[in-house]
């Protein structure tokens, strides 16, 4: 947090001697901030609250604010085999993220610490694959998987997520690696450290937080992915997002169970995102921002 406050730069005096009008203005701005924050967060808070209501209390108009809370909805969600979908999501996200990191860390290292001829070209090639709409490549992939009998297969989905997340991870890792002081690496090379010693013992510990953040972002994108999962899986390998999408039958009351399922589905990523939020922006901006 920078110590200079943007909207209040005219103020150089201390809090106690601040003019009353400015202090009142500051209170108003803080109030507005909180109103907007609560407004933005409200749908999520309401989702969590609804998850603990009975179906009857969930679908009332005007809405029910005070009611008996219950865990029945969560039980109902697990009765519908939710654990299988969560496990599939977890497998696809973790496996794809691991493969991405194994490919991305050396590549980013080669592109930043040990430069290659035309390394910028390679970098921009990687990022251009991120701009490729999934829709443009899904037809041949679908037909290929169908011919190989690999539709509804969690490994196939994981490999596609590798392609989806690889460019992002490389750019992000490159951004973190470019901050490793060149002198440290040169000193290690002079001391006769071979490449793997250099990477594992010297570079990796310095960029460990960056690696963790990149991995978290890859995990988030894979966990939330709907388009490919919806097309390429059906029962065995179905992940959470398409399960949620097909959840609503339209008949009978379902709002409370839906809220419970959605709450469970978003929980891992929301927690991961909260933990990584300081570095999130840099990853999302593909390393363009410190």
């Amino acid at each position, binding site marked *: 947090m920078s110590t*200079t406050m*943007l*909207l*209040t*730069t*005219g103020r*150089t005096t201390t809090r106690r001697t601040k003019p009353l009008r400015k202090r009142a203005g500051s209170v108003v*701005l*803080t109030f507005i901030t*909180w109103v*907007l924050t609560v407004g*933005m967060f409200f*749908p999520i808070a309401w989702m969590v609250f609804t998850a603990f209501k009975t179906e009857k209390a969930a679908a009332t*108009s*005007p*809405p029910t604010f005070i009611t008996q809370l219950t865990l029945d909805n969560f039980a109902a969600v697990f009765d519908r085999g939710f654990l299988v979908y969560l496990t599939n999501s977890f497998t696809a996200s973790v496996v794809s993220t691991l493969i991405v990191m194994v*490919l991305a860390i*050396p*590549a980013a*290292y*080669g*592109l930043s610490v*040990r*430069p290659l*001829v*035309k390394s910028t*070209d*390679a970098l921009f090639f*990687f990022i*251009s694959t*991120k*701009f*490729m*709409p*999934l*829709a*443009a490549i899904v037809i041949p992939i*679908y*037909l290929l998987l169908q011919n190989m009998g690999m539709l509804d297969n969690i490994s196939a989905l994981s490999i*596609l997520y590798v*392609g989806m997340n*690889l*460019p992002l991870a490389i750019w992000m890792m490159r951004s973190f690696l470019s901050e490793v002081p060149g002198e440290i690496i040169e000193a290690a090379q002079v001391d006769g450290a071979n490449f793997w010693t250099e990477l594992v013992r010297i570079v990796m510990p310095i960029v460990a937080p960056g690696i963790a953040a990149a991995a978290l972002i890859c995990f988030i994108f894979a966990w*939330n992915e*709907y*388009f490919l999962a919806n097309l390429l899986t059906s029962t065995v390998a179905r992940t959470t*997002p398409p399960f949620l*999408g097909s959840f*609503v039958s339209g008949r009978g009351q379902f*709002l409370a169970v*839906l*809220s419970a399922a959605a709450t469970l589905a*978003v929980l891992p*990523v929301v927690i991961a995102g909260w933990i990584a*939020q300081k570095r999130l*922006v840099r990853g999302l*901006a593909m*390393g*363009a*921002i410190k």
Partner: protein
Amino acid sequence: MTATAIRPGRVENDGEVKPRRGRKPVLTQRERRGLRLSRALVWPALAAAITITQIPFLVTIYYSFQQWNLLRPGDQKFVWFDNYATVLTNGAFLSSLLATVVIVGFSVLVSLVFGMVLALLLDRKFVGQGFARTLLITPFLMMPAAASLIWKWSMLDSNVGMVNWLFSLVGINPVAWNTDVPILTIIIVLTWQYTPFMMLILLAGLQSQPSDVLEAASVDGAGPIRTFFSMTLPHMRQYMELSILLGTILLLQVFDPIAIMTRGTGGTKTLSYLLYERAFVGLEIGEAAAYGVLTVILTIIVAMVALRSLFKIFKKEGMS
């Protein structure tokens, strides 16, 4: 962009050190070994990216020249640009392009404005600042499928939705969001999800303002409004550009809320959804592939602008 500087230390790819084309730089043995090593480090990732994303795209281009419906497998033949002629003249493409432009355009611009407001508000010291920031980024972390469902059934439902209830408190008649104003419904959900994304990038921009310059401005008697327009806004330009471009790239593929909330009705059939429908409901492989190729061409146009802007920012931040 060609970077031809080869040193074992740091990369110099600003395009400033640029030996003449065609003249091979002389390398020492150690440098040559380093170069071989970095090639070996990059190629597995390169091979994976090409196999997973580039080859299927080439196949898509090939399919786009075929007349091919999955229901009539024997009927497959090469028809050159017939599919392109069909999709460009049957009206579906143009209306879908319009839907994409409207939805992406409005969602990006509105979330940019909201994101800017929130970033400015967060860039002050106040009680619970970190907590407010944490709550504010959460919509972007929401699984889009879950966000779409919650908005559709819990917030915007015409009978039990919270929004219509709030409207009734101030005497506004209930709105059947999903059926009466589907485009607005999609834009609301996307704006809600992408405002935090814009906010994070813009907040990083605000916090990277050199504080001494701002102090100098205030010493010179510039008020907060004047400081904002003559100093902050110009500084923020590149961050706004970046967030617009990244937001556009991410949103051009938007699919989840449309598949879940409107199923392409009421002018919300974006290019991804149209392709999905032609390929996996209509089973028209050739035609869908043509849509795919056209979508990529469109994305490339946006991406070229994006890449140039990204590159400029890297140069400025001294990060390459």
